[in-house]
């Protein structure tokens, strides 16, 4: 049953994260904590999204999710990044009823199974919410 949750793609991103580590320069930074489990992440963005860097400690789901976020949003035009962000949040909040679009979400579709585990949705969303805050602090609005 947890095969649905621990897709190979997720485990790959967890073991070999893309773009991990905090980098300069950046225009906005946000630090988010999941108070129930203590997982933490810091996300930095430049105001043109040419770099998104992050560091944190947490479970495979939250860490893989940060890696996928980096892969999907770094270097994207802001409007497109906002669309991808919205699609990912919608997938996570869809209780497993939302069919993900691979064209938009790429490796992010591997998180479809996570949406069936209410206790883990927060883990997957942690980097995305931190990104949204960091972007807002950089003056970038990622809400569609």
């Amino acid at each position, binding site marked *: 049953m947890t095969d649905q949750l621990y897709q190979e793609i997720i485990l790959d991103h967890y073991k070999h994260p893309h773009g991990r580590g905090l980098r300069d320069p950046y225009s906005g930074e946000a630090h988010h904590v999941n108070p129930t489990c203590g997982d933490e992440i810091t996300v930095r963005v430049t105001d043109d999204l040419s770099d998104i860097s992050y560091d944190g400690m*947490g479970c495979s789901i939250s860490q893989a999710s940060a890696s996928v976020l980096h892969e999907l949003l770094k270097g994207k035009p802001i409007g497109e990044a906002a669309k991808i962000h919205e699609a990912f949040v919608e997938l996570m909040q869809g209780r497993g009823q939302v069919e993900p679009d691979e064209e938009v979400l790429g490796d992010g579709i591997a998180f479809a199974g996570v949406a069936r585990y209410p206790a883990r949705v927060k883990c997957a969303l942690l980097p995305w919410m931190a990104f949204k805050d960091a972007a807002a602090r950089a003056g970038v609005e990622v809400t569609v």
Partner: protein
Amino acid sequence: MTAFDVARVREDFPILSREINGHPLVYLDSANTSHKPVQVLDVMRTYWERHNANVSRSVHTLGTESTTAYEDARAKVATFIGARSPDEVVFTKNSTEAINLVAHSLGASVGPGDEVVISEMEHHSNIVPWQLLCERTGATLRWFGITDDGLLDESGLAELINERTRIVSLVHMSNILGTINDVSRIIARAHEVGAQVLLDCSQSVPHLPLDVVELGADLIAFTGHKMLGPTGIGVLWARADLLREMPPFLGGGSMIETVTMERTTYAAPPARFEAGTPPIAEAVGLGAAVDYLSAIGMREIHEHEIELTGYALKTLAGIDGVRVYGPGTPDGRGGTVSFDVAGVHPHDVGQILDDLGVEVRVGHHCARPVCARFGVSSMTRASFYLYNTTAEIDALAAGVEQVKKVFS
């Protein structure tokens, strides 16, 4: 007393026959909340079906029956912990409320220059109320550290508890390390300087024979749902003479003597601390839980858990990549065993174990400073009770092997 028979005990807990994800339920999360035997469920159902009424105010039959049931529960709890009188037992919502009650009531006489002493081993419920008290009053919060072996570090005892110390509030048994703190030296020192000692017994009262007079603390707090009772009912015990001096915490009905528009005089304890309609059925349920535990025998339960703990410590130590926190033998520790699987986050450990029907708790266990002390953000915790078996610990070990396989 007949010999302890875990198979017979298990028959009293209907939930234990459940399956989780196609596997028999292996419940290793009793430090979080315990399951309830039919004896408790039946008593609560009968209370609601036959006796339901408000307490301490009605002259009618149902009111009298309810009041009797509520006060009988208080007397049972008093006997269970060796209190000198039922009047020393205050019903609260849970341990957290009991500790907050003390922080407000006993804390009312604390001021700038005074010191409150806790430890790094506390549950958040025994940290935050004291931080709030110190913020309100200008008192200083100080604490004991933890040794590498998971014991309270008493090396600075004489200085840490001094003539400025007013309240010492410590965990009796750690909810994360399993350590049962030998608090005798600390209590002796606190009393030498005139400080009051509160012990958070949330994890000890459900699992050990405990006698408040022998323990020597001035107050203790514990909660019903961790000792086979329902949620929503907890206990503050305090020495009668101390309780008599303490001002009210919450104001309202039931805690008064006389009310005029100008002022109010307060009832004697324990009523003084039980404003409003209390959790009546829950108190009655806790009374039934105490009956159940007493019939089996706390010594027998404790011995069963020592056996489980020894088996778990040995089993987990034998798994490559597993690190156990807290004391390494069952001496001076209870059946709460936190551990780490190398390279795998506790959330992922817990998820895969759940897939196999093994229910453990993962996270910081509301004791984040303990995690920080050992350099981790969270831990996986297995905790045992009277209904657990060594076969369930084998299921845990098999689950941990599966965790390692998925994340290899």
